[in-house]
């Protein structure tokens, strides 16, 4: 079982690498739309990457209203 902090850290690393943003520029409470410069459709791409990495399935509605990495990590952690 991954810890919440480890999950969060892995999400930040994956997001940075997928959207080619320096990892050190991302922090847990960042608005990922802004920090990654992505739109809502691209966040679905990110979600798929994260699902594959963590081997979980997240319905689209889980992401509704979520805009920071920490909350996203919480959603994933709850399904691990």
């Amino acid at each position, binding site marked *: 079982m991954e810890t919440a902090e480890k999950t969060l850290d892995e999400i930040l690393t994956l997001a940075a690498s997928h959207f080619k943003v320096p990892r050190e520029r991302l922090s847990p409470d960042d608005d990922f739309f802004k920090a990654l410069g992505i739109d809502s*459709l691209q966040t679905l791409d990110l*979600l798929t990457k994260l699902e594959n990495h963590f081997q979980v399935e997240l319905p689209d*509605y889980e992401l509704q*209203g979520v805009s920071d990495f920490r909350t996203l990590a919480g959603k994933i952690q709850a399904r691990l």
Partner: protein
Amino acid sequence: MLDLRSYACLGAALRDALDRFSSEVCLIEADRDREKVRLTYSDFKEIALPLARALEDADFDAGDRAAIIMTNQSKWLISAYAIFYCGGVLVPLDYKLSAIEHLQLLAHSKAKILIVEYHLWRAIMQSPDFQKIGTRIVLVTEAPLGADLAGAFRWEDFRRKGAPDFVLRQREDTACIVYSSGTGGRPKGCVLTHENYLEQCRALTAWYPFWPGVRYLSILPTNHAIDFMVGFIGPFVCGACVVHLRTLRPEFVRDAFVRYRITYVSLVPMIVKNLERGLRVKFDELPSWKRAFLNTMIATNKLLTRRRPKVKLSRMLLGSVHRAFGGELLALITGGAFMEPSTMQFFYDLGIPVVNGYGLTEAGTALTLNDLKPFRADTVGKPLPGVELRILNPDADGIGEVAARSATVMSHYLDDPELTLETIVDGWLLTGDLGRFDGNGHLQLFGRKKNMVVTEGGKNIYPEDIENVFDGLPVKEHCVFAANYIWPRKELGGEILVLVLRLEQNQHFDATLLEEISARNRRLPDFKRVGGYLIWDRDFPRTASMKVKRQVLGEEIGKSAERGAIVGL
């Protein structure tokens, strides 16, 4: 297809369609790569009628209202049919709204029944205003066994044996109440009649018919006017099939095109642009000789289809591109927001026509549509059969407000006679959009008169609806505007909301205030966020009842400040 002229209401037309096309597949529902539901018209009827009977037994009568808050799925359409079967009025609510907004609209619509997905119901139950809910019966779909539903029923169990009585409605009766937005200050519930829908369906299918075997991929929310018509009523009265996806991840949408050999799909411009981006990346990755060959094929296709689409020819010339879309796609239908002409042209040149249109909830689904005779990327098409359009007070360039008269224009705004009078004048719907006709009868749009923005995702955002997020901000006063309302420009796109701030005397705009604004902005869904702020150095003009005179303030700002004064957030 059915001859809709002979029907008095949607329920009657749908009822006949279920019998006429009984063995055809009407619905497919897939979750990722797993197909979960496949129903024929006969199966659909078998599931819907016990629900209609249960609604009838629960005293749901003719004219009673029932709201649906669901993502696109088979139970949405089954529930809607059961409501119409009982003579009810459907209130389709946007599932992307917040729980508080759902409760506000449920109260405003006075819905007697609510049909809602479990995750959305959970959010509503957790809302501080939940206790005030006045909806008598709630049916929750896909609730886990043993889940606390706060007195709601499981949709799957809410059914009764025995044939329900079909309740016939008249053409002038209300079919749906559709909220065009306006949850914060003034809900705008468009009251649309059976006549509105039947005539809209007749007009649309006259230009773009469906038939048994057509598969329509339903991606736009079904509560939206476009999908309700093109992803439900239209296909059903023609015996076609609607495909629902429970996830809209790009990779599963791409798979669905191929797996279900999709014929038509409606998309908002944001998704079409995303598809374009994906294709361009793929094209750029091709070895140079392949790229050169592709360019030649595109140029040939462009030349041969300049007068009208020739889908079979395009499929031969550009087979690999068409196969990626399933090989049977006839058109991408787009609407609900501004679409860049270059994107439309990109797809048309590949032999995939983009059918661009223009409409608003108040006018049913669409007022104009591109008839592809020939394809035009620079217009929103021609008025549909039965639609009259006028340009009011045209300027020297012929640009003025678009007004519409048609059997598809709503009856009125629910419980708002004042707004109705302002919006429908002498039988003409004032759209608030600026446009002009070209010499070929095509409508071109140039912007909006109204203080609102339409996002690329097709959402209407009224600034007054989001202003309360900034209530309590440590400034003297604040107001939100659409930038294009303050600084009108004769083009669409690039719309942003701007937060206008009047600071206290001797107050300075500092980092703390900026952080506070940013934090509040983040609480809004991404499509509702303000794009920048502007410091204003005068008190806001107000009415006797202290309401901000928006129009006056907007004009004052427009005269004294440039658009460039907006500081991005």
